[in-house]
C-alpha cells in the first residue's frame, strides 16, 4: 500500500491537497483537503447588505460573477426588491458568458494537459495534422503551414531550454494516448483558446466595466444604463459589439472546442468507466426566462439519486445540511449532526499538524471544507448534474446534443456517469449556452427599441424601506455547480451570512456517517500506473474543475476573531 500526496494540485483555482492509498495499481481510498481559509462570511457581519456582492465576489476570481449574483439575489429575496426585465437579461448575458468562457478555459488550460502530451506534439507531421483538423472541423486555421508554424514556435520554445510552466510534467507517461498530430492540434488550440477567451470576455467589460471582478451589480438591478440615444449608456454600439463576440464564441465552441472534445474523448473511451463518484446529482437550475420569483428556468433544477435518470425529483432546500465531523470547525452541539445553513454555525478549529507537515491525520479532521449533504446524501454538482437534470426534464437542446455526443462516441447513457461524462457534459453545456446567448441579447435590444429602459428597482434602495429583520436566500448555477447564499439582515446590517458552494459539495471531506465526498468517491477505483506520476488521479479531480477558494467558506453566527493580527 502506497500513501501518495498530491499537494499542490495545480491547474485549479485555490489550494487543494489529495491524499490517496494506492495498491495493486489502483486507488483504494482517498481524502480531499482544502488547505486555505479566509473567513469572508465573518468579515461580512455588520456591513451594508448592498455591499455584500463585492465582498463575496472576491471569494473567487475565476468564476468572478457567481458570488456577486448569488449575493444580490439573496439580499433581494430578503428585502423584497424586484429587478426589472432588463436586469434579468443583463444578468443572464453575464452569467452565460461567464459559463462559456470558463468552460473553454477549463478544457484547454486547466484540463487538457492531463490528456495532451505537449512534448509528443514536437514529432507531429504538420501535413497530417492539417488533414486531421480538416477532417473534424471547418475551422479555418487548419493549413499545413499553420501547424508548421505552431510546431516551430513550440520547437523554439523547447530549444531555448526554459520550459517554464511546462517543465516537470508527466510527458511521455504511458497514460497519454493521442497521436502526435492530435497533440499538436490541441497545442495549437490551447494557444488559440488563450487568445479567444481574452477577446470573448470583453462581453463582461461591456456589461460590467471589467473582467475579472466586473462591477455593475446592484441589489435590485444592474448599474449599466440602457439608452439607444446616449453614448454613456449601453446602446446599439454595445449591442453590436456583443453580437460579434457571441457569434465568435458560438463559432469557436462549434468548430474548435466540441470537435476537439470528441476527438480527444475517442482516444480515451475507457475513461467512461472511471471516476463515477457518488452517483447523486443536484442542480438548482439557472437562467430565468421571465421576471419574478419562481420563473421557469432555461436549465431546470432537480435532484437525481443513485444514477436513476428516469426522472428528476424537485429540489427542496430544507434538505440541505452541512457536517463538520472531518472539517476544521466545531459545532456547539457536537460534530455528529448536520446543520441547515440557515441555522449553521462555524467555529474554526484547526486540529491538524503544524506546518510544515508530511501527512494529514485523515482519521480526524482534515479539511477547511465542510461536508454538505442533501437528505443525508453526498451530491455531485456541476455541468454533469445540470445536463442530466435538463436531459430528463426534456430540455430540447440538451437532449439533442447529449444524444449526438453519445452517438459520436458510440457509447450509451451510462457512460455519462464518469470522468469522461463530466468532461463531455461541460462541453455540451457550453454549446447549448453559446447558442442561447444571442436570444437574450435580442430581447434586450427589443426592450431598448421599445423605450423600456429600466435597470433597477429604486423602491428598495434605501435601507429605510426594508423590514427591520429579514432573511433571504439566493441560488445560482455557477460553472462548477449549485451555489447558494443565505443572508440574515437586522436593522439594515448583515447579521449572518452563509455560502454553500459548488466546490464544498464536490470537494468536501467525509461526513459523520463516513460517506466520502464526491472527489474522494470518484478517485477510488482509478488505475494508477506509476504512483510517482499519478496523472490518472488528476484526470478525475480536474474533471470536476476544482475551485477551492469558493469551497472554503465560513460562516456564521458565532464567528469571531481567532488570532491577533501580529503588530508590525
Amino acid at each position: 500500500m502506497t500513501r501518495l500526496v498530491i499537494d499542490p494540485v495545480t491547474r485549479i483555482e485555490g489550494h487543494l491537497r489529495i491524499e490517496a492509498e494506492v495498491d495493486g495499481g489502483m486507488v483504494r481510498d482517498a481524502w480531499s483537503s482544502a488547505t486555505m481559509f479566509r473567513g469572508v462570511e465573518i468579515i461580512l457581519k455588520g456591513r451594508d447588505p448592498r455591499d455584500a456582492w463585492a465582498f463575496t465576489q472576491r471569494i473567487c476570481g475565476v468564476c468572478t460573477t457567481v458570488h456577486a449574483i448569488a449575493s444580490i439575489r439573496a439580499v433581494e429575496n430578503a428585502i423584497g426588491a424586484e429587478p426589472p426585465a432588463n436586469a434579468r437579461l443583463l444578468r443572464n448575458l453575464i452569467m452565460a458568458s461567464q459559463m462559456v468562457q470558463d468552460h473553454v478555459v477549463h478544457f484547454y488550460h486547466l484540463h487538457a494537459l492531463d490528456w495532451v502530451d505537449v512534448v509528443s506534439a514536437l514529432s507531429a507531421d504538420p501535413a497530417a495534422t492539417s488533414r486531421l483538423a480538416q477532417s473534424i472541423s471547418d475551422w479555418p486555421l487548419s493549413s499545413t503551414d499553420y501547424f508548421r508554424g505552431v510546431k516551430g514556435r513550440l520547437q523554439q520554445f523547447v530549444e531555448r531550454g526554459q520550459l517554464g510552466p511546462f517543465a516537470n510534467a508527466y510527458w511521455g507517461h504511458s497514460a497519454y494516448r493521442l497521436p502526435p498530430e492530435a497533440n499538436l492540434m490541441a497545442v495549437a488550440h490551447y494557444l488559440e483558446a488563450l487568445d479567444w477567451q481574452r477577446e470573448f470576455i470583453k462581453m463582461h467589460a461591456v456589461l460590467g466595466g471589467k473582467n475579472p471582478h466586473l462591477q455593475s451589480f446592484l441589489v435590485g438591478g444592474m448599474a449599466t444604463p440602457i439608452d439607444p440615444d446616449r453614448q454613456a449608456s449601453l446602446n446599439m454600439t454595445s449591442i453590436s459589439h456583443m453580437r460579434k463576440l457571441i457569434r465568435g464564441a458560438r463559432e469557436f465552441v462549434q468548430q474548435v472546442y466540441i470537435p476537439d472534445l470528441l476527438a480527444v474523448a475517442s482516444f480515451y473511451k475507457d475513461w467512461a468507466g472511471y471516476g463515477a463518484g457518488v452517483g447523486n446529482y443536484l442542480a438548482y437550475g439557472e437562467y430565468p426566462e421571465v421576471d419574478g420569483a419562481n420563473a421557469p428556468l432555461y436549465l431546470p433544477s432537480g435532484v437525481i439519486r443513485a444514477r436513476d435518470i428516469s426522472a428528476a425529483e424537485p429540489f427542496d432546500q430544507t434538505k440541505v445540511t452541512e457536517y463538520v465531523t472531518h472539517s476544521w470547525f466545531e459545532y456547539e452541539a457536537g460534530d455528529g449532526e448536520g446543520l441547515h445553513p440557515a441555522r449553521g454555525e462555524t467555529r474554526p478549529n484547526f486540529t491538524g499538524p503544524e506546518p510544515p507537515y508530511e501527512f494529514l491525520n485523515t482519521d480526524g479532521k482534515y479539511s477547511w471544507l465542510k461536508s454538505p449533504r442533501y437528505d443525508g446524501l453526498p451530491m455531485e454538482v456541476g455541468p454533469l448534474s445540470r445536463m442530466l437534470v435538463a436531459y430528463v426534464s426534456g430540455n430540447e437542446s440538451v437532449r439533442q446534443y447529449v444524444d449526438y455526443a453519445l452517438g459520436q462516441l458510440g457509447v450509451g447513457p451510462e457512460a455519462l456517469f464518469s470522468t469522461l461524462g463530466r468532461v463531455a457534459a461541460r462541453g455540451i453545456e457550453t454549446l447549448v449556452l453559446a447558442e442561447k446567448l444571442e436570444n437574450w441579447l435580442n430581447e434586450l435590444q427589443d426592450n431598448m427599441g421599445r423605450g423600456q429602459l429600466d435597470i433597477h428597482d429604486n423602491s428598495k434602495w434605501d435601507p429605510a424601506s426594508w423590514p427591520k429583520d429579514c432573511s433571504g436566500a439566493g441560488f445560482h448555477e455557477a460553472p462548477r455547480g449549485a451555489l447558494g447564499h443565505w443572508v440574515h439582515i437586522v436593522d439594515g446590517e448583515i447579521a449572518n451570512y452563509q455560502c454553500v458552494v459548488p466546490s464544498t459539495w464536490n470537494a468536501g471531506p467525509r461526513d459523520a456517517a463516513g460517506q466520502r465526498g464526491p472527489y474522494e468517491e470518484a478517485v477510488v477505483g482509478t488505475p494508477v500506473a506509476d504512483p510517482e506520476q499519478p496523472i490518472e488521479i488528476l484526470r478525475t479531480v480536474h474533471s470536476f474543475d476544482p475551485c477551492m477558494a469558493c469551497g472554503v467558506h465560513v460562516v456564521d453566527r458565532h464567528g469571531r476573531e481567532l488570532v491577533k493580527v501580529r503588530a508590525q
Partner: protein
Amino acid sequence: MAASESWLVEELERRGVSRREFVGFCGVMASIFAMPRTVGARIAQAIEAADKPTLVWLEFQDCAGNTESFLRAGRPTTADIVLDTLSIDYHETIMAAAGHRAEEALEGVVSQKPGGYIAVVEGSIPTGANGAYCTIGGRSAEQIAKEVCGGAAATIAIGTCAAFGGLPAAAPNPTGALSVADAVPGLKNLINLPACPANAENLAAVIVYFLTFNRWPPVDRYRRPLFAYGKAIHDNCERRAHYDAGQFVENWGDEAHRRGYCLYKMGCKGPVTFQNCPRVGWNEGTNWPVGCGHPCLGCAEPDFWDKMTPFYSHIAGVPGFGVHATADKIGIWAAAGVAAAYAIGGLVQYGRRMVHAKAEEEKGGQS
C-alpha cells in the same frame, strides 16, 4: 548569445507580426508610461536582447483574480509572455506539473538562481493558527513567502490582498492576514500593484519597464509605480466635466445616469483613489467600471474594504484636488476626507464591527 538576439523578431515575423507592428506594441507600452513614442524602439530592442528572466508566481490567500487578469493581458498577450518574454517556472494555476514535481520546480529556482528571479505574490499571508490557514505542500504561506521572496531579485505584490492585506485582512481579519510587506519585512525591490484585481496592462508594463531600463519604476509611498498610480481617478475621469458642472446621478437608471453624469453622489471613490483605469481601461481598453455606470470602489487603496465602505455612501466634499495631486501629496488630506465622510456612516460602522468582534472574542474566551 548572438543567436538569441533576434529570436523574438524572427519568431514574430514567422507568425506574421512585422517588426513595425512589434515596435507599435512597444509604443503602446511607452504610452502607458506616458513616454514619447520614440522610446518604443528602445523598448523593442530591450525585449529582443534579454534572456528570458525567470518568474515564479505564488498564490496564498487569493481568489486567482490577478491570475485571471494576467490571462487577459493583450499587450503583450499572455501566450507571448509565457512563451517568449518570461520563463514562468512556477504558477499553480497554469503549470502542467503537480504535487512534489511542482514543488521541485519552485525549489529549483530558489536554490539555483538566488537573487536572480522575480517573485510575484498573489493573495495575503495568514499568520494565525501557526500558518494553518494557508498551506501548500504542507508548508505555510509565510514559510514559503520568506524563502522565495527573500531570495528574489524583486517581488511584485499583485492585487490588493498581497499589496495591503486586502479582503482577508478586512475587519475583523479572522486569519491574521498580512500584506507581503508586513509578512516578509525588509524585502528589497518590492513593488505593489494593488487593485482588485490588478490590471494586466500594468503588470506587463512593470515587467517591460524592468527589461528596458534594468531598474524598477519609481513608486509612491505605498510602493505603487507612479506611471500607473500617480494620478487620482477623478482627475482623469471622463465624467469629470459633469462633476465640475454639478451634474450628478441621483438614481440608478435615471436620465442623468443614462447621460453619463458624475457618480460622486452614488458613492464614487474616484477622488481618493489613485490608478490609471480611466486612461488605460480594462480588457484592452474596452471599458472601465465608471464607464459602465458604477461608482469606483477605491480598490487600489489600502484598507479599502473598511475605509471605502459602505460603497454607496458618498465621500465628503474634498475641494482642491488639483490635477497635480498624488497619493504622496494628498494622502493625509484624503485620509482626513474619508474619515470625515464616514464619521456618520462607515467609520462608525467599522469601529462598531471591531468592538463587536472583540467583545465576541472575549465572550468566546470565557465560555
